[in-house]
């Protein structure tokens, strides 16, 4: 198989204009005759469903939560990037593009990233018009701040709740279309399989989570905006319901899965406090703008932080990276935190933590200003830890936060299955091996508001759609397969809970395919994952029945898919004999411990194809070309 990314020819600045002009359009009167399915209602899905509804398409939007407003985009805190250059500090579309390609450690597709940077400016405008209450200056203009890994102030924000406000903007736009009758919103309903007929994605099979009823939905195209797969680690900053099931079922129906091992560990999360821990809480990385990260110089130093004098503290990021200091990209900050903790200099009961200290910032700008900037984050920290971060330094530790890998898509955001489009975190395309802060919101909204409305139209205008209904034999066989899996999970009645399997799986993936990886460790992990998966299918217990709300059953289906994904992540990580971004192979590092890429051999996207149960997946490579930003070793010193 060869992969055609369909990147427009000619200069990168004009690529998106050219692509849009080359697209076929759907006559306005014909739009309502086309039905579209959008799975997921976060920034990408909500924005897509709303925008497609506005164009007049007949849209059905699905989410597993009780309301589209719950999607996990809501939890994003820090902000959204845009190349507006309002602060007059040297920002430009090209710089945002450059920073994103470099920050992604040269494993992203240039053309997609350039388009993202171009569109970024329109996103802010759209959101402002919707009534998103971005932070403002006294004069009424929009405020910006600098954010993890950037030397310009290009981040727009709404207190520490930017994701919430942007999502509510998209949600309100979506509800407006529900009112207009162009979008049917179907909440508490989970996509469990994809229907592919004659090589085209033509619909989904979904399960109503309240009644257990399976339903078939046929459409001319299916758009997945189902988020990332960080919950494969069990402990992550993702919402408890975030899962890979929709993407995974698409993978098993023929869509390629790209770079699954590219996962992001966020440096600033509240450390784990006990075995019961169900998830990890992120503290926005905007805190690194004012907080200073340090650990004691001495191993096993048990003194309380205020008892450790200045010259016995190691501000290790400022020491190692004088030009970026505490603002180095996430992968670098995380790896360094792990390194100092591995040396035995970690803080807190578990020794897995570093200090994030606001003492100097409070002395400089005053507690009031700090409260204005981060008040809700400080309150959240205090609620969880019972410590006052205005007085005692925060303790933080890295945690899984985002997954750069996802379903492979071309420049049109179409997967390898015609008619299946993938948006937002669920696709792989824009962040390479590491995502910069405040870029996830940007990508989700870019894909949803400004890319898919064009590209899906081109697909609809250039393809024919045979009439299909639920009685089609292929539809029937997909429904039967879904029913069989559900029945199977309910019938095992073993001894172990779904969560106990998920925890154990998460520990394996974290230990061997987390912040640092080795070929041997990955081999071990694959063996362990397979053995545990086998036990799962023989010994899991799912109480209750399939015809009412059954949260254990929902979890069981998702964990079953995580098992298969976990193995693919390890296979991908083992195959990539280099370190890049969030993928750090211990065998491949520079003498001073930085990630060492191998552009000669690994400058490609690894796209994996499913070949049936028990078979090794097939690897197809999409070579990456860098015509604008020339690969160099990232240096933040």
């Amino acid at each position, binding site marked *: 198989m060869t992969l055609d990314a369909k990147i427009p020819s000619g200069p990168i600045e004009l690529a998106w204009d050219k692509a849009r002009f080359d697209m076929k359009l759907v006559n306005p009167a014909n739009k309502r005759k086309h039905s579209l399915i959008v799975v997921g209602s976060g920034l990408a899905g909500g924005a897509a469903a709303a925008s497609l509804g506005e164009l007049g398409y007949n849209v059905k939007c*699905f989410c597993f*939560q*009780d*309301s*589209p*407003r*719950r999607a*996990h985009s*809501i939890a994003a805190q820090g902000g959204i990037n845009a190349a*507006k250059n309002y602060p007059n500090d040297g920002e430009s579309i090209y710089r945002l593009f450059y920073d994103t390609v470099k920050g992604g450690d040269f494993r992203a597709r240039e053309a997609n990233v350039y388009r993202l940077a171009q569109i970024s400016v*329109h996103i802010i*405008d*759209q959101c402002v*018009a*919707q*009534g998103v*209450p971005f*932070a*403002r200056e*006294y004069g009424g*203009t929009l405020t910006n701040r600098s954010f993890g890994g950037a030397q310009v102030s290009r981040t727009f924000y*709404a*207190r520490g*709740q930017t*994701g*919430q*406000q942007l999502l509510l903007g998209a*949600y*309100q*736009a979506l*509800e407006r279309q529900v*009112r207009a009758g162009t979008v049917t919103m*179907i909440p508490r309903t989970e996509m469990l399989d994809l229907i592919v007929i004659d090589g085209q994605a033509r619909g989904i099979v979904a399960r*109503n989570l309240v009644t257990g*009823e399976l*339903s078939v939905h046929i459409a001319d195209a299916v758009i997945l905006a189902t988020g990332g797969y960080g919950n494969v680690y069990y402990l992550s900053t993702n*919402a*408890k*319901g975030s899962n890979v099931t929709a993407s995974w079922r698409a993978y098993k129906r023929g869509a390629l899965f790209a770079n699954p091992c590219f996962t992001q560990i966020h440096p600033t999360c509240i450390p784990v*406090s*006990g075995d*019961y*821990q*169900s998830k990890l*809480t992120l503290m926005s990385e905007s805190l690194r703008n004012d907080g200073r990260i340090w650990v004691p110089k001495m191993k096993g130093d048990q003194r309380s932080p205020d008892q450790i004098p200045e010259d016995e503290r190691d501000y290790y990021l400022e020491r190692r990276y004088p030009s970026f200091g505490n603002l180095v990209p996430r992968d670098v900050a995380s790896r360094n935190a792990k390194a100092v903790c591995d040396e035995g200099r970690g803080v807190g009961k578990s020794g897995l933590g570093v200090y994030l200290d606001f003492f100097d910032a409070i002395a400089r700008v005053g507690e009031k200003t700090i409260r204005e900037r981060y008040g809700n984050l400080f309150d*959240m920290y205090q*609620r*969880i830890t*019972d410590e006052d971060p205005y007085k005692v330094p925060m303790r933080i530790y890295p945690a899984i936060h985002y997954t750069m890998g996802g379903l492979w898509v071309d420049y049109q955001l179409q997967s390898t299955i015609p008619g299946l489009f993938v948006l937002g975190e669920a696709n792989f395309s824009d962040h390479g091996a590491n995502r910069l802060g405040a870029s996830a919101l940007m990508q989700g909204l870019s894909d949803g508001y400004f890319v898919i*409305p064009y590209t899906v139209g081109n697909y609809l205008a250039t393809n024919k759609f045979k009439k299909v209904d639920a009685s089609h034999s292929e539809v029937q066989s997909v429904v039967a397969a879904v029913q069989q899996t559900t029945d199977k999970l309910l019938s095992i009645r073993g*001894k172990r*809970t*779904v*969560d*106990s399997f998920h925890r154990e799986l998460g520990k394996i993936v974290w230990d061997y395919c987390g912040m640092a990886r080795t070929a041997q460790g990955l081999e071990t992990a694959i063996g362990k994952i397979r053995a545990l998966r086998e036990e799962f299918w023989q010994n899991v*217990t799912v*109480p209750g029945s399939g015809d*009412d*709300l059954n*949260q254990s059953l929902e979890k069981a289906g998702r964990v079953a898919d995580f098992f298969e994904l976990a193995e693919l992540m390890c296979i991908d990580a083992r195959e990539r004999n280099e370190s890049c971004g969030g993928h750090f192979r211990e065998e491949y590092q520079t003498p001073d411990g930085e990630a060492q890429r191998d552009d000669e051999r690994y400058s490609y996207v690894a796209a994996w194809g499913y070949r049936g149960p028990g078979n090794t997946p097939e690897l197809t490579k999409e070579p990456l070309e860098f015509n604008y930003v020339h690969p160099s070793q990232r240096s933040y010193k």
Partner: protein
Amino acid sequence: MKLTLKIWRQKTHKDKGAFVSYTVDHVDPEMSMLECLDVLNETLTERGEEPVAFEHDCREGICGSCGFMINGVAHGPERATTVCQLTMRHFNDGQELVLEPWRAKAFPAIKDLVVDRRSFDRIIESGGYISVSTGQAPDGNTILVGKETADQAMDAAACIGCGACVAACPNAAAALFTGAKIAHLSILPQGKPERDRRALHMVAQMNAELFGNCTNIGECTGVCPKEIPLEVIATMNRDYLRASWKKREDLEATIPPATEWSANRT
């Protein structure tokens, strides 16, 4: 520490519910209320019993999924805290906690602690937005919004739609929720053109749902995890009154409340 959890169990909305008491040993003070329920659920599952169904997702206090009454108080005893962020250190060894779902006619029961809050979505659907389609927006800085105004709008916009305000209200009114959205949008210049229509439509929808009327008791703001101020209700009333003085003949009918769950509806 050891706690007794007296929890409302109800299999479906058709079944009759009842309280069942469970003892949870080894409750760690650092745990959240939901983690405490996780621990109980693991035990129940291992015994082959159905775990307690409760709604949750982000567990960071922002998605608005979680929420139930703890000893008669929505989201429990801590101010400005959802149950996912409520740590067990606020309770004492040996204490009994009574957990029950939001109780309101407009929030029909689904199972155990889970209720149907689609009435909130319908209120937003009826007019809780600014009508601007993708692509129509002018440059962000052409609309100037003073810092105080932006802050005030943000205070109202912080609502997470959890439903605690309704659950705490003796009338089961949705005035704080509806008022928060009306205030957020009508304070901002972008929201002014639709101010009247929005208030009329949203209030009409709120009245069409099975919520009660607001009698200015203030329990809602007291339990609100985002501390939405009571003033938003005054804003709603003012906007509604203002709009009602102007004749309107193009108002749309309210949305009929749906109570069934089926993905096969079109």
